[in-house]
């Protein structure tokens, strides 16, 4: 089975984020595989271990992204394609066009991506890729099985679980709970240094940089407002309910 994983390198959102000149300061920031994409990598490797096949990681980003690629290869992916080209660094439109162009001429049965990126919260890229390739997609998957020529997936549906089937080839996006990603072992890390990473430029993909240029622009990046201290409402249940509704109406204006 040929499995393709769409992966993004993000900064570690659990570390302290500092903004400078309207951007996240990269100084002191640790870069990681987007955690949802890590589920995707893990699932692909598990499927390969069970069914056989080849796992190819595809990613877009600057030179530093190579460390994330090596990590995926160390976990057990077989090969990688890295689009390290300024023309590919745009918004969801740009990246999905690039990824689809990379994938379309390759053999694939299954494409797995993260459900969203933790840095900018984007959840569009993978589903756009499915659309561009003309394959079905199943998003926010928490369980995945291959059953002959089709996949059976469980997905989050507003607190319930929906069971969805689709024929291969198909694109699925990974949700938290799908699996527990492994740490790359030291043997895996050693092997990863010998696995191939193909570098591809936008022009080589037959794409017109202008046509895929970003359609949106970032106006401003701000940190979330500092959380104020909480307040415990006093009195009996009735009084507390009334006070709560009043607060929700007047102070936070959510009602």
């Amino acid at each position, binding site marked *: 089975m040929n499995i393709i994983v769409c992966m993004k390198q993000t900064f570690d959102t659990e*570390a*302290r984020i*500092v903004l400078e000149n309207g951007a996240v300061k990269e*100084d*002191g920031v640790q870069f990681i595989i987007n955690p949802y994409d890590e589920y995707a990598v893990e699932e692909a490797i598990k499927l390969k271990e069970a069914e056989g096949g080849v796992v190819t990681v595809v990613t877009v980003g600057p030179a530093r992204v*190579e*460390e994330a690629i*090596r*990590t995926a290869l*160390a976990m057990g992916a077989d090969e990688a394609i890295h689009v390290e080209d300024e023309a590919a660094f745009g918004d969801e439109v740009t990246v999905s066009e690039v990824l689809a162009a990379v994938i379309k001429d390759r053999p694939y049965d299954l494409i797995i991506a993260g459900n969203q990126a933790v840095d900018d919260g984007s959840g569009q890229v993978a589903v756009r890729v499915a659309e561009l390739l003309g394959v079905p997609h199943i998003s926010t998957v928490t369980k995945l099985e291959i059953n002959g020529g089709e996949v059976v997936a469980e997905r989050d549906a507003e607190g319930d679980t929906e069971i969805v089937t689709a024929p291969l080839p198909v694109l699925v996006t990974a949700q938290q709970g799908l699996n527990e990603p492994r*740490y*790359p*072992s*030291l*043997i895996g*890390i*050693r092997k*990863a*240094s010998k696995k191939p990473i193909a570098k591809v430029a936008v022009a080589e993909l037959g794409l017109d940089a202008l046509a895929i240029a970003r359609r949106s622009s970032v106006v401003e990046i701000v940190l979330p407002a500092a959380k104020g201290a909480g307040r415990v409402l006093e009195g009996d249940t009735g009084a507390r309910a009334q006070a709560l509704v009043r607060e929700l109406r007047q102070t936070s204006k959510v009602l």
Partner: protein
Amino acid sequence: MNSSTRERGAQFFVAEGNANSVFTPEDFTEEHRMIARTTAEFINGEILPVAEQLEHQDWDLTVKLLRKAGDLGLLAADVPEAYDGLGLDKVSSSLITEQITRGGSFALSHGAHVGIGSLPIVYFGNDSQKKKYLPDLASGNKLAAYALTEPGSGSDALGARTTAKLSADGQYYILNGTKQFITNSAFADLFIIYAKIDGEQFSAFIVERDSPGLSTGPEEKKMGIKASSTRPLILEDVRVPVENLLGDPGRGHVIAFNILNIGRYKLAVGCVGGAKEALETSIRYAKTREQFNRPIASFPLIQGKIADMAMRTFVAESIVYRTTGAIDQALEEIDLSGADAGRKAAKAIEEFAIECSINKVFGSETLDFVVDEGVQIHGGAGFIQDYPIERMYRDSRINRIFEGTNEINRLLIPGTLMKKALKGEVALLPAAQALQQELMGPIEPADESEVLGPERHAVAMVRKLFLFAGGLAVQKYGQKLEQEQEVLADLADLGIALYGMESALLRAQKAQTNGHHHAALQAEYVRLYVAETFPEAERLTKDILAIMEDGDGLRTSLSVLRKLTRLLPPNTMALKRGIAARLLEVEKYLA
């Protein structure tokens, strides 16, 4: 790395180092960083969640986690590939050690197994011993311990009383004696035990746990590192097959001292990991703890502590990776395929015995300084066991004692240097003679217009102080200098200051040349360290001079000293506030 440019052991005493040939953490490869990250993830995912349980000595859990570490390859770094290990470089195994230390004293169980437990076989085992034991040690299938110390022999390791007697049929050595403070003794499957054949020939043996007559005493109730097992080991007529003699009979000291060299720099690497953890814990506390309606991190005296903790950690880190990198470069010159590869490797590491001692002293004293200031930043909370800094403070203390006390290591630094000079491995005498000539004329002042110019000057001057004081000491005492422990310790501290200042300086210079984004911060660390250490080097020299001379002789020497110690001090208040501001912003160690 070209052999003509590689760092040579102890050369820093006589010649200026070269920023291009020192290894620095900025030289870590992608593979190095990934190994560090896997180790960190193992600590975060497997060790920290059960840290409390480990602290209460659940040995089954410790063994399970060591095996899990084995599955990831974290026990195989130093074992050659031919014996199912990974055969990684020393920088990789050091990075594993540094990260593991962040998980508390589980690091001791790991370190004793992969270090003193396994390395004697890696370096001194014969092929059949290696084949028999190393694959299991690399996987964690078998766990190892090391038994050198005895109730009556600690620093005087060769004074061991444990005996080995060849059996009448020549098939076994029969071991009798008691070993003390044996790490991993609760669960180790394999012990490296030192004993004297016929009460004379100090030798090492591989002894399996299930050997009849081998038993352990009760767990010691320790001040710290409680997650590690420490017991006495009792040997009563333990029959050890002759093929388990490790190395040649009567050559156990070679094994013991070589393993100590490695143990010493690895201990320092662990101290760097511990210091970073204590620093970051203290930074987070200082930012949340409020007094006078503001976080205590906003007070300059707290900031000063944070800056000093980070600066010392930076210097320690610069030292340990300079030494580790230099050892790797030396090992690259060796053909590691032959049967005697292990011995050759141990010999190559021995070239850096002085650096290993410096690492040990500087690393352990840095960690002790950092945890002490960490407790101080925590105030009363630092004295309460609910706060991790309390454990770190207790765990730190042993580092100044084991792997050779810091006192023994201080004596070893000038002692080993003199031996190297006599063997012609370091051109100490020509350097001291050249200095005497130089001191007749004027000394070039520091170039204050150059970035780190004063610091470069300070390093050059401390080298001269060492050669000046050391040269006079050799003239005065000759061979008897060995008995002048106070002078030796002062000389050792001068040597440590020199290696520390130079390692930090070369790293910062290299970072600057390569446009590293923390080059400016590194330069601030160097300026602060030199500002605090240069006056100390002057004091040490003065102390040595006053021990050896008096009256006009002393006055003449002090006038020379003054020539060498002219340096404008920087504004340390500005430096400390600047450093602290950076670290408080990101809440972690930066370099």
